């Protein structure tokens, strides 16, 4: 045991890059909401990029180390302390056996990633250590971290202090946050005016924002093209015959509040989706606090792939910087 959880913070969970291949059984991919930050944290402490870390939301945990390790914290910004002494974010530092890692109040962003050299080594479930509480998979016996938990780690001391990710290579959302959308799926259900309005309006992150999905409010209600509802779909114009949901797809139940489905989302259901957030921007959503203003920006496939390549290039630059 190397990590003793004195205080779990708020919904702190073990996450890696998630599990693949079980979506057709209703088991979501899971994994870090901000995979970019998780990869960077792991690189800083010399781990495989997909090693399991702690993902904490809005508030940091308090952790006592029983073995010396290299540690890095990325993602949301908040003062990081080791036995009361302030440490740099997006940088590696050493926590010695017997010392305590703690945090002060959140300053910006929403999710922080705590990587420890050797990674967290709780048992894998279906190929991943990611916590999926609804299905009681991964994490600590299928749940989030609690006070009193003792988490095993790989145990090596890592590369030590002094490694860092340059500020220009870090990626966090602006304000308003711009989220790029590829229209598709059931986009044809919307009237042209409603489709345009969705992109013109400014939205705001609603309080209902978690690992399953992010809800947005503040824009005009969306109007649907008139039709007789198909057999089996349900009476509401936003209903469809239940189908699969894409990662990042945007559903708008009743046409009022868009919900972007994230890592722990339900795998399918009966609401129309108007398209999906491009893969390059999904990490940014993980860093949005409630009440953050958001603009959705319409892009085509070419722009989506270009953005994906930009994100890959940024990760490659971090790899080279830390090599």
């Amino acid at each position, binding site marked *: 045991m190397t990590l003793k959880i004195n205080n779990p913070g708020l919904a702190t969970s073990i996450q890696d890059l998630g599990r693949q291949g079980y979506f057709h059984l209703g088991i979501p991919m899971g994994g870090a909401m901000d995979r970019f930050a998780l990869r960077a944290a792991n690189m800083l402490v010399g781990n495989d990029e997909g090693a399991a870390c702690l993902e904490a939301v809005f508030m940091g945990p308090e952790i006592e180390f029983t073995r010396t390790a290299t540690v890095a914290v990325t993602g949301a910004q908040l003062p990081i302390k080791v036995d009361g002494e302030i440490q740099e974010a997006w940088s590696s530092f050493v926590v010695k056996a017997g010392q305590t890692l703690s945090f002060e109040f959140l300053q910006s962003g929403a999710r922080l990633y705590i990587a420890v050299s050797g990674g967290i080594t709780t048992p894998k479930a279906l190929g991943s250590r990611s916590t999926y509480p609804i299905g009681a998979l991964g994490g600590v016996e299928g749940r989030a971290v609690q006070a009193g938990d003792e988490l095993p780690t790989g145990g090596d001391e890592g590369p030590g202090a002094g490694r860092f990710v340059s500020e220009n290579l870090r990626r966090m959302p602006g304000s308003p946050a711009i989220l790029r959308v590829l229209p598709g*799926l059931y986009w044809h259900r919307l009237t042209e005016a409603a489709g345009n309005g969705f992109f013109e309006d400014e939205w705001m992150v609603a309080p209902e924002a978690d690992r399953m999905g992010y809800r947005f409010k503040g824009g005009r209600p969306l109007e649907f093209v008139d039709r007789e509802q198909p057999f089996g779909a349900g009476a509401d114009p936003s209903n469809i015959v239940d189908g699969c949901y894409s990662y990042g797809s945007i559903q708008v139940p009743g046409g009022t509040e868009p919900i972007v489905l994230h890592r722990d989302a339900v795998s399918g259901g009966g609401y129309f989706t108007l398209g999906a957030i491009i893969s390059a921007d999904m990490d940014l959503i993980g860093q949005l606090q409630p009440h953050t203003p958001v603009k959705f920006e319409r892009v085509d496939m070419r722009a989506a792939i270009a953005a994906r390549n930009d994100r890959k290039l940024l990760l490659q630059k971090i790899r080279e910087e830390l090599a």
Partner: protein
Amino acid sequence: MKTRYTFGGDEHVYIEMDDEMSLDAFFKSLSMSNAVRDARIEGVTEICPANASFQVRFDPDVIHPDDIMTRIKELEHKAESAEKRLTTRIVEIPVYYQDPWTHETLMRFRERHQDPNGTDLDYAAKINGFSTVEEFIEAHHSQPWFVSMVGFVAGLPFLYQLVERDKQLQVPKYLRPRTDTPKLTVGYGGCFSCIYSVRGAGGYQMFGVTPMPIYDPEQKVSHLKDFMVFFKPGDIVKWKPINRAEYDAITAAVEDGSYVPRIAEVEFDLDEFNADMRGTNAKMLEALNDA
């Protein structure tokens, strides 16, 4: 029935066989998703069949979205010529209708329901033209069901009843979804029945509960030792009404590891079924009774 192809972001292709539910659409979707699996296209990471559609997840770093779209479209003719025939199993699922746990839950969320003065079954019976709840329950369990999709949450089956369209039961979902549903609730929404594999939020009407677990991440339950999820698309289900004493007996048997679900292997041929629905069902139920 006209197939519609679209992208879900830059990592998914979504293929809708039809916008309305039918077994023809389901079979075409299943055949085509199997054809995509058999084609072993490099870059494909997940293939998820649904009721009348399916989704392919891919890695755009490996295959360009336009290329995978072309490859999938080329496979449509295979689905059209595929046999609409399955070797599958029929499973008897015991259901305790009007149980105390779903009753407590539906009363707790009454203000989110279309009819705050009755139960979910009262409402479902009424809007489907039955004069009593008992007659509605009889219609729900007398003919078998087809698992047309697994998903929403871990291991949850969507089921479609094997009867003529004008005999299909239809109910809307709750006006606003509940934040709680008892584990193993037998639910209903649109033309689909479901079993809530885990406790949690839900919008389907609640009719009863089964004592038979269908999801076990620890794989301790005897019939879930090989894999944690029980259902797969193509399974056929027969609900068996049980009372409280039978519910308690099965629950005890599940706990001591002696419960064995009643299952029989059957062939399901869509053309044969369409030609004689009641006859095909009777044959499958006979196989189940012999098991």
